[in-house]
């Protein structure tokens, strides 16, 4: 049953060193506030899982929180490289990062299997690519009914999945709409869950295309307005493309990155304080 907690308490009680942590959100609803809180609490040796490790994982990797990454596309969308991710893979800074690399379709099959309680997922995937020779968790399988050759990938079962959503009610039922991504599967695949939301409402009124995840299937729900910034929450805010572009410079050198993280994340108490410190509170474009 979901408990309404503050983000600091939720992260402290559910995310400990060495766990496998998934933070999803396909461009939309990326749980940046929770990522920052993990950095603030100095978590180490995490196995991070995410289809598109963009800025949120660049920050966690550069801050030294992770030693393993399972992913399918690691870049700053529309901008270029993730400099901290590249520095970790190419030069082992701040320490080596072990990678497990899939395709988007493979990651989707893995989360779906995890949410279904099945041991593996199956897809028409990876054929003719070099990925199966580099990734141990891709194995050919023969369909027992048709004889077709397919790819099997093991279920993803994170210790903790973190997601951001538009809103929840007082029972912790969570409502998500717009680009719903893979949050539902990632949450239901996990042993424990944290969902940050824009607001708590008395009643979840119907919204076109919305899904609801029942509170009894979740663990912690935390109110963090703008908690996805620079990602966005449809109906609440727009994507801050300016920050995605600015991140390229902030993250280019180890020194500039570390100074930025120390100053705006490690030295601030929470996400609203971070937004003020980094001069971003005026950049949150409310709709």
């Amino acid at each position, binding site marked *: 049953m979901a408990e309404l907690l503050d983000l600091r308490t939720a992260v402290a009680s559910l995310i400990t060193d060495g766990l496998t942590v998934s933070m999803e959100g396909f461009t939309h609803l990326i749980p940046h506030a929770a990522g920052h809180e993990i950095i603030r609490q100095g978590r180490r040796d995490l196995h991070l899982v995410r289809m598109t490790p963009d800025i949120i994982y660049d920050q966690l990797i550069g801050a030294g929180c992770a030693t393993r990454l399972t992913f399918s596309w690691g870049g700053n969308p529309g901008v270029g490289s993730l400099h901290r991710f590249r520095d970790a893979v*190419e030069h082992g800074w701040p320490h080596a990062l072990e990678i497990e690399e899939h395709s988007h379709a493979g990651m989707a099959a893995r989360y779906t299997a995890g949410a279904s309680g099945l041991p593996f997922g199956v897809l028409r*995937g990876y054929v003719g*690519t070099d990925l199966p020779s580099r990734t141990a968790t891709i194995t050919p399988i023969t369909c027992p009914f048709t004889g077709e050759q397919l790819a099997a990938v093991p279920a993803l079962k994170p210790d903790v999945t973190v997601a951001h959503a538009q809103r929840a009610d007082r029972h912790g039922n969570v409502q998500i709409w717009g680009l719903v991504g893979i949050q539902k599967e990632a949450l239901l695949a996990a042993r424990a869950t944290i969902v940050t939301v824009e607001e708590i409402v008395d009643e979840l009124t119907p919204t076109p295309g919305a899904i609801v995840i029942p509170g009894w299937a979740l663990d912690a729900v935390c109110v963090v307005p703008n908690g996805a910034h620079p990602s966005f929450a449809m109906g609440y805010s727009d994507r801050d493309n300016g920050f995605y572009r600015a991140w390229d410079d902030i993250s280019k050198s180890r020194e500039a990155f570390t100074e930025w993280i120390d100053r705006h994340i490690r030295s601030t108490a929470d996400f609203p304080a971070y937004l003020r410190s980094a001069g971003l509170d005026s950049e949150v474009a409310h709709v």
Partner: protein
Amino acid sequence: MSERAATVIALPAEHVDADDLMIVNAARALGQLAAAGRSACFVGIGLPSTAANLARRIYDPAPVLVYESGCIGSKPTRLPLSIGDGELGETADAVVSVPEIFAYWLQAGRIDVGFLGGAQLDRFANINSTVIGSYDAPRTRLPGAGGAPEIAASAGQVMVIMRQGARAFVERCDFRSSMGFGDGPGDRERLGLLGGGPRLVVTDLGLLQPDPETCELIMTAMHPGVTREDCIAATGWPLRFADDLAETDPPTAHEIALLREIQAA
């Protein structure tokens, strides 16, 4: 430089560069496919998205833009920075989950055209978007395969847009992130891939298409003002030219005006 090339550059009050030629020609190809009833286009971000959005503005029937973020039939008014900008969802015919877009729409064979870019392309149109150098000690770690392996495998056909250069157009990719024709004729069939594979590569120098017999990419058209020597110098394998090598039509003022409009919005 031919007179025709000079005419292109003299388009009214417009400067037209090699990227414009590439984007306009890719948009034309998508327009032709849509006219032939093959309109569902799975669009990668960057150059593919720019060309697909231009095609959507010019042609009727227009290509149906499908983005891996789950947006089907997006009609953005400005170019999105990411595959999941809010406007892609707000203007879509349908928004589905990520597992659904890859399972029900892509792998099930509902996509007509997969439209890809990449860092390296080889003579059999295999694409690398994973690493330059060795996988274990990469010289450059690229973002990775993302949606491309299954797009290249399952879309009815694949179109590629990439700037042509000797470091990008290589004899053999450092890593095969997505499959074109593998090591040559028969590989796609032998591996049981659903889709027909690459049909067209659009570059800043011209068009390449696979030789129907050898599957090797050959230059079938050059943009106005481009020479064979330019193409050979920008290709890392011994480039062949089609017997009926064509010249692409110069961009029209209308095409360039619409391109500037979506770029500026």
